[in-house]
């Protein structure tokens, strides 16, 4: 699992955006909102990231009804959550160490 961390910024925010079932457009909008407009995911970047995370089983398709014309929704898996938690732990360590030198 260790070689998956650190996550790229795109992967980190996509994982955060699929904690609830979310579709492509929704992920782009949510990430834009979370970062105050700083990170606007390119649709090609998102497409590549989703395919790669689907094959690693970090995320899965949510929609039960495959015949419906509803947009495809993605949701984080338990593996995805573990990867995400490991990254958050690493980031916390960074921030805590930085704080030691702040004062």
């Amino acid at each position, binding site marked *: 699992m260790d070689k998956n961390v650190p996550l*790229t910024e795109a992967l980190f925010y996509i994982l955060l955006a699929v904690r609830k079932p979310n579709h492509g*457009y929704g992920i782009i909008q949510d990430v834009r909102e979370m970062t105050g407009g700083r990170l606007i995911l390119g*649709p*090609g*970047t998102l497409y*590549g*990231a989703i395919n790669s995370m689907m094959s690693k089983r970090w995320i899965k398709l949510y929609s039960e009804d495959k015949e419906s014309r509803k947009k495809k929704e993605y949701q984080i898996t338990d593996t995805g959550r573990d990867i995400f938690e490991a990254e958050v732990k690493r980031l916390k360590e960074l921030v805590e160490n930085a704080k030691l030198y702040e004062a």
Partner: protein
Amino acid sequence: MNKFRLYFDKDEETKWLNLMCMNGWAFTSFCLGVYHFEPCESGEYIYQIDLLSSWSGNKKDFAVFMEESGVEVLSQWYRWVFMRKRASEGPFEMYSDNESKIKQYARIRNFFAVVLVVEILCFLDELYFVMRMPTLALWGLVVLIGIIILAFLQIVLKCRWKIQQLRNEE
């Protein structure tokens, strides 16, 4: 309005489509080098071109995903995809980080590397023929294939250079 162009470099091609749009002509479809344009407001759309990742084609999957992400897919030609978004919706870039930009240029480089090898084989084949039966038409063909080979080679080298630039930025 229709225009015929031969573009091998998708960056130059994108630039041209966006320039046409600035001049009030919105690109709407592509087939065999013919670009179709409809009148539009100056700068109404932003255009992007991408190369699909697989030879067998993930065409439909890609197109559906793009449409669901708010991107209009205009034309899919072999592995190439032409897309646009309204400029009023903000900036439109396919790739937002260096890692995915590098992957895109690597895809394009590999694509042209394969067609380059095929062209070189054609070239050698034609050269063999022309040696045995030197006619003007055959020589013309040899020269034409030679020019195409140089154009493809230029793209492969440009992609390598782009990837290097992006790696240096990281």
